[in-house]
């Protein structure tokens, strides 16, 4: 089996799910003939035709609304946001319509809302966002943010089969930069389960998406200095894998949380509270975090580099924490 990129993993998941079940349809802007802004859906229209692969007007609210309606009739729409930043345009439809539907009146909305997210590619303030936390605070949604090609494929397949609205964030920096061999046979990855990327005993670094790779790089640097780091990849943000987080903290007794999202109101705060509730006695040091700055994502390379976490920043924070 040849190694594939994360983009290819996502693409395969969409093709395989649409092959498996004619109730799965895709809609979004420029996903048909053009194959999507990042070519994730290239060849999809040719294979599945215009009834199943729908090029829409530039109307995020209408796209998500229509997907809700399709879901009520038993279809399983996969919606593409051309860039995940544009999800802000359909905020109401996602948070008030889709997310509350099952709780309010028992009507599930089986929908996947996926799109390229994240920075590091000099996309500027409107093409680099990590808007996951707007939705983390919305009961009824599930949020997936994978870091590997294997997970991206397996989790997307699970998302399509899930009965709830699932936001699936695809870090565009990882689209073509990572490659991985994946099994030839069918597989899925369960939603809501974190993965241990590296076992260690001195401290836990908790992260997700592109930052997992940054943390792994930092962990290698730290290993040479004698600091043995455990790296946990959350994979699913909502629902959070509380057990995996607490198990690792109870093992290493120290926790550093790293995310590319901005600092205030980022997921690190939520995890810190969760650890204080569930493993306070086990902590041997303060819960630390490395995050992006509390600013919009700046455009120019030196500004964005300053904005984003990197392996040096992660390693420095880990060294400080290891001293406790």
């Amino acid at each position: 089996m040849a190694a594939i990129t994360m983009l290819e993993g996502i693409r395969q998941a969409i093709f395989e799910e649409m092959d498996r079940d004619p109730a799965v349809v895709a809609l979004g802007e420029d996903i048909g003939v053009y194959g999507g802004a990042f070519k994730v859906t290239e060849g999809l229209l040719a294979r599945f035709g215009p009834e199943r692969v729908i090029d829409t007007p530039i109307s995020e609210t209408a796209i998500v609304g229509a997907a809700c309606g399709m879901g009520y009739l038993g279809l399983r729409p996969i919606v593409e946001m051309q860039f995940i930043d544009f999800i802000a345009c359909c905020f109401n439809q996602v948070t008030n319509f889709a997310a509350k539907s099952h709780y309010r009146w028992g009507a599930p909305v089986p929908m996947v809302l996926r799109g390229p997210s994240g920075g590091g590619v000099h996309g500027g303030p409107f093409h680099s966002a990590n808007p996951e936390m707007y939705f983390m605070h919305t009961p009824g949604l599930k949020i997936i943010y994978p870091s590997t090609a294997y997970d991206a494929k397996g989790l997307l397949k699970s998302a399509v089969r899930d009965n709830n609205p699932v936001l699936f964030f695809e870090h565009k920096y990882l689209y073509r930069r990572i490659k991985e061999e994946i099994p030839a046979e069918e597989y899925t990855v369960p939603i809501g389960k974190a993965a241990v990327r590296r076992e260690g005993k001195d401290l836990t670094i908790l992260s997700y998406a592109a930052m997992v790779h940054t943390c792994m790089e930092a962990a290698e640097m730290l290993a040479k200095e004698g600091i043995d780091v455990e790296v946990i990849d959350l994979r699913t943000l909502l629902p959070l894998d509380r057990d995996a987080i607490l198990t690792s903290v109870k093992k290493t007794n120290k926790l550093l949380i790293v995310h590319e999202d901005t600092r205030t109101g980022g997921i690190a705060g939520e995890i810190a509270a969760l650890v204080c509730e569930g493993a306070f006695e086990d902590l041997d040091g303060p819960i630390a975090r490395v995050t992006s700055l509390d600013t919009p994502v700046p455009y120019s390379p030196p500004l964005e580099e300053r904005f984003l976490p990197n392996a040096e920043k992660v390693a420095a924070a880990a060294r400080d924490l290891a001293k406790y």
Partner: protein
Amino acid sequence: MHVANSVKETGTTAAKLTRAQYLDLYYYMQLNRQLEDRMVRLFRQNKIVGGLYSSLGQEAVSVGTAYALEAKDWLAPMIRNIGALLVKGFKPRDIFAQHMAKYTSPTFGKDGTSHFGDLKVHHTISPISMLGDLIPVMTGVAMAGRYLGQNIVALTWIGDGGSSTGAFHEGLNLAASQRAPFVLIVENNQWAYSTPVARQVPVKNLADRAVAYGITSKITDGNDVLAVYATTKEAVEECRAGHGPVLIEVKTHRMKGHAQHDPAEYVPKEMVEYWKARDPIARYEKFLTENKIWDAKTKSEIDAKIEALLDEDQKFAEESPLPPPELAEQGVYCDGCHTIEADWQRSKQELTPPNCSVDAIWEVKSFGSLDPDADAEMKAAAQTKRPQPSAGNGAPSVRLEKTAPKSPPKPAANPPAAKATAEEKDALETAAALRVPFGRGPKDRAFREERAQKEKNRRGKRGRR
């Protein structure tokens, strides 16, 4: 091109209904009014937990529109469409219990008012409080129904106020571009909370907006239930025939405030008097009497039936328990508690590769220039370009139209002669279209293998001959 159904015209459309149907319309309107009347009393007794929004004077809109739908069709009510819910088959007890936040309500007390629905039997989608969002949702319902071969129509309402939202525009534009079988009732009751319609919408008729979406529109008298019914029925039939969405503006008036707390002192008394004299139920009663469709005895029988039903259902709701507190924690996610299964009315095979596979090609029918010569140039270019050779990379010849969903016929608004011309013109344009194969062609192996296999089979057959 509005089709204004005047009050006079209702006499002719009326002939199409059976006596039972005439009486049905009265039954539902009166049930709607009496139910809400009782809820006002309950509100004053503090038995309604949240707000109460009156549809007094608008009963003909809810009942006349919903009555034009078939059981398989879908609707999504707005806050003043209780009558439509009754027509769709919900019981007064559902509506009482919803407003009283009881455990026996369709949402078990999780939401109030008309915020409920039913996917399996009543084909009704619950609204949310944010206006306009139902328009894209019902567009999706209409698209899915067509996809599944169900031949359904989806219908929802929007107020004059709600017509100013972005979701209204996005949804209607999507419906129009998809030619979805979707009917939008713009219920112009003259008031968006306290703001008169003229202060929000600088057009004479809200139906005029349909022109901007390239869809059919109609205007009708919202206080004449037969006009509302006939106009909606016409629109539903057009939709079902594949002519694309229809917008119907119904002119009516909100006779109470936005909700119970609002005395609506901003509404001129003369305006209230004008519309009071056109009360939809009083008008319809007169129609039934003048046309000898009923007599006093029939009326009192129906009224008694309504009273008995409401007595029973109100009692049921009042005696129902409130939900157990622990229910608050349940049902955020669907964890298999509901099965999601589409009702397929067409062969899945049609939508399974390779049957659904096409060649990804854009058709360009116009250069889009103001210059009248541009079209001629475009056609000339198309002539020299045809027949379209397949691209060097094996990219395919045109197959999109063959497998594309059947392009629905143009709206039947034009007389037959004009229609034929339009079709001919369309055919000419199609012939002259420039076709651009796009991208590097299908990359996935399965697609290539299937294509190769098909080609092999074809050749094999030819060989045997």
